[in-house]
């Protein structure tokens, strides 16, 4: 069953369309990745699903019911993990979760049980009485999640839940996302970290300029760009590199430089590696390593949008 159905969704701020006639479905039980660069329209779409913003046009259905007309039902069943930490630093971890869970109508013993369950789930069961201002960044992120899951929502929207935390906490959160999914929650997950999306998402949509430009499993997305490949060449220094000459080599689609690494996207069927290496030698490059990359999500994203995810 579809948990979310979006049809013809548009959100305009003045003349600017942040979301432009978007259509999308999320099935129950999915971990759905929402990929897009800053300003692509991800957060606006998420905000409309969470009833924080009203669409200019189009509709969103949650479990078959129009969200605009059934906001209370939708809100009762959706949990929101905002990108920015949304917790009270002057209230203990327990009080934070209790306050937000209390907004969903829980009281007394049931409220207490749900708060303890949520805190235990994110690994803060033994930190209940502590103030978040004494927490590490990762612990605050986990508390941010606990505040969103205590009412046991069917859909959890996670907007960049791992920003700025250590690898250990990130791993904990990713495992928690998987565990929540195993427990029956559908997850709508946005991230700037492509590897996270690849690791946990069962389906992915790429958003650009307010539209969904590709949607499918990661295998399906990678299959879109079977006609291109990426060549990574590590050099001692890129000083003196003539990018224009490289781009003129037959089959080369684009050239990017990341520190001492030259990333060349090329058409897959053309064997031009020898020409590329010769050109680099002519430019005085000292080559350290050459690697031909299989298409990954980053390549897909770059091919489809023409820019990096972190642009």
């Amino acid at each position, binding site marked *: 069953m579809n948990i979310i159905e979006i049809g013809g969704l548009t959100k305009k701020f003045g003349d600017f369309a942040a979301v432009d006639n978007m259509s999308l479905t999320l099935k129950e039980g999915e971990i759905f990745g929402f990929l897009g660069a800053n300003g692509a329209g991800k957060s606006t779409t998420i905000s409309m699903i969470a009833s*924080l913003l009203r669409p200019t046009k189009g509709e969103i259905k949650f479990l078959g019911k129009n969200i605009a007309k059934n906001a209370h039902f939708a*809100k009762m069943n959706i949990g929101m993990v*905002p990108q920015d930490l949304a917790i*009270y630093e*002057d209230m203990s971890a327990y009080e934070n979760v209790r306050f*937000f869970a209390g*907004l*969903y109508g829980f009281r007394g013993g049931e409220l207490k049980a749900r708060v303890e369950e949520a805190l235990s789930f994110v690994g803060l069961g033994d930190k209940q009485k502590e103030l978040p201002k004494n927490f590490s960044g990762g612990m605050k992120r986990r508390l941010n999640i606990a505040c969103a899951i205590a009412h046991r929502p069917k859909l959890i929207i996670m907007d960049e839940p791992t920003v700025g935390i250590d690898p250990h906490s990130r791993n904990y959160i990713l495992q928690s996302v998987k565990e929540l999914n195993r427990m029956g929650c559908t997850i709508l997950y946005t991230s700037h970290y492509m590897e996270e999306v690849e690791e946990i998402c069962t389906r992915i949509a790429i958003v650009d300029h307010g539209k969904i430009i590709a949607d499918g499993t990661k295998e399906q997305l990678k299959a879109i760009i079977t006609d291109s490949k990426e060549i990574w060449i590590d050099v001692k220094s890129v000083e003196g590199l003539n990018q224009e000459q490289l781009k003129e080599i037959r089959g080369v689609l684009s050239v990017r430089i990341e520190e001492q690494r030259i990333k060349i996207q090329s058409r897959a069927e053309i064997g031009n590696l020898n020409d590329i290496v010769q050109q680099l030698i002519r430019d005085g490059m000292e080559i350290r390593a050459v690697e031909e990359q299989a298409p990954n999500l980053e390549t897909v994203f770059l091919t489809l949008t023409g820019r990096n995810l972190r642009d």
Partner: protein
Amino acid sequence: MNTLHIAKKEIVTALRNKSTFIFMLAFPIALMLILGLALSNAFSGSVEIDDIKMAYKIDQASPALAAGWQSFADAAEESGVTIEALPPGQDGKQAVKEAQYAAYAEVSDQGIDFYDNSRSTIESNILQGMLTSFADRYNLVAAYANAGASSPASDAGQTSVQLVKTSSLTPDSKPNSMDYYAIAMTTMIALYAALSSASLIESERSRHTIVRLSAAPVSKTEIFAGKVLGGTVINAIFIVAVMLLSHFAFGANWGDHPGHVLLVLLTEVVMAVGFGLAAGMIFRNKASQSFLLIFIQIASFVGGAYFPVDDFGGFIGAISYYSPLRWNNSGVMQTVFGGDTSAALWAACYNLAGAAVLLAICMFLIRRRETI
């Protein structure tokens, strides 16, 4: 239920905040102490009842009213207030302007016209309270007489003329500097509720918790009502604490009508909370704090928080009437020192009217926004 849930959170977090205690409790008490004690000698508003003089003229009054007035004047004289019949040919209003008298009353069957000198706020408040009390009692007797019923006093064997008495001012109920500053600081700190209220909603925005609140099944009205209720209750707690502390620690006189005094102060708090919320929503963040701080300081200065405003004339004197502190101080002082509870009710009405307008502005702004 969610309104109470949100209000409870506001109260609990405010009570944990040490700076709230310092600002809402220690600050007014310290000012009360400093101003009330250090300036007691220089405090011209420390009025001795013996110093108060009022002139009157009786014009076309019935014998009953004339007798009643005389009874009132005698009772007031016993308390030390000098009430003099205006010498023939003298202009009473001019005499008040020239500060020969604190007030002037023209008594007739059509009513009592009372003229006071705005430079003698405390004296005129006391006299106004005494006169209102007299008029209320006289009207009561007149109503009994018109209805042909026996008055309670007549039942006790007294004549109706004897009934027309004002309550005598007891020698102890003269306002000294501590009494004045207890009232002035309490009404001032009630207005300061605006400052903390400005961040009630805006702080949710800066902490990003507004996203969670808006994503929860809670209406914007419930969130707003919870904030108003929480802000009002927490400030009301501190106002009552200041009153009690000033009474028990400094012996400040809060009169015989504490319910009416509380009504004035609580309605002032509601108005201040509405004012703070509106300023917070219009100016956002620090700009609202600066605006409120400037407004409250000016309102406090011209409203009589730091010294009686009797000496103000001209422009400052004129704008002082627009300071919420002026009408609240006046309402409380007339109630405490003159026993005029109607003054408290008027002040409460002004406060509630102001609160209604300000809260309506807030609701209008909230409805225009997509998220609160």
